[in-house]
């Protein structure tokens, strides 16, 4: 999986970033500062960072409102496309 762009708002991101809240837990993103280590700066909470590597946010990062969440344990049609590089044989 290509994670080269992890933590960066460069490249395709136009204009300012709006992130104010953590997408995983919904708490203010300023709560824990970047630790200067391997955690990318766009991830204020290291534990949340791990989850956000794997799945979409559950909270709006602009306003902290909870997103409606649909959980799918199975791959279902066009709704849930697996990555093309993870072909099953």
């Amino acid at each position, binding site marked *: 999986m290509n994670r080269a762009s992890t933590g960066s*708002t460069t490249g395709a991101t136009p204009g300012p970033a709006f992130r104010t809240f953590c997408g995983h837990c919904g708490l203010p993103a300023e709560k824990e500062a970047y630790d200067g280590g391997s955690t990318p700066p766009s991830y204020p909470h290291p534990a949340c960072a791990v989850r956000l590597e794997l799945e979409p946010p559950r909270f709006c990062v602009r306003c902290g409102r909870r997103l409606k969440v649909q959980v799918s*344990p199975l791959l279902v049609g066009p*709704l849930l496309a697996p990555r093309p590089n993870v072909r099953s044989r």
Partner: protein
Amino acid sequence: MTIQPQLLKHPILVTAREQVLEQGRGLSEAQLVEVLRLPDEALPAALDLAHQVRLKHCGEDVEVEGIISIKTGGCPEDCHFCSQSGLFDSPVRGVWLDIPELVKAAKETAATGATEFCIVAAVRGPDIKLMNQIKFAIDRINEEVEINIACSLGMLTRRQVDQLASWGVHRYNHNLETARSYFPQVVTTHTYEERLETCAMVKDAGMELCCGALIGMGETLEQRAELAAQLAALDPHEVPLNFLNPRPGTPLENQQVMDGKDALRAIAAFRLAMPRTVLRYAGGRELTLGDLGTRDGLLGGVNAVIVGNYLTTLGRPANADLNLLVDLNMPIKELQKTL
């Protein structure tokens, strides 16, 4: 409120602010084309506007929904984007899930605080055998679990719509996928009208309609606007917005992956077309939006997401993802109250 200078440069955004944000009226097809044609530098303003529209016109929807498939693969239809089609050389194989397994999944879903359980089958439409299975499953689930049941079973007859409604199915998912004018390019085994008919009957019967779009299949911007306008006319409760992830073994496998910024423009346009709909960001995340959409708040107009497939694709067994549901017990943040 003062109008941001960014908006003023783009008349369509000024119009959208007045018409959609202030008055709650979605943009027309022609107006949507303008949104889809906005230059990159207008994107933050467009997404910000989409976010404001969401804040003003959508409720605080904190519902959690589990989704499970009782039949994958082997579908007789030829939808070019879908690996469930049995017509293409695609790796998915047909599997039937047994009813006790389904009830167990519903229980686990409910145990996490989820209020919705959606049963999905990859079929053209249900036959009697499937309808019987569904009826049986619904009865078993209702006996043991307190949860709303939704279904996605393909195209329905009037009788089937009425049956599902009478069994207490409260929401039905049936996607338009693409614009009417582009539909024949991607599906030849059924018509757009057949899809529309099912959607209309579902609404008539009083069930909530969840009606998805799949973009990035080679349609033009005009056709993307056409799709948004067609969806808006159906006024669905919920619209899952998917971006094509070209699937190996399907006719669209060589389709260019959609540009992330085009995907964001589409998100803004769909929100501006449908100010009140639950707009779900549903697929193709890694391929189009990558990190930028989800981490930096660019999913401005979206108020729902789908989770759970990512771990599966990383090689965990599918049912291990049910454990993910436990995480959904997160409290609703105090933050929301301050808004």
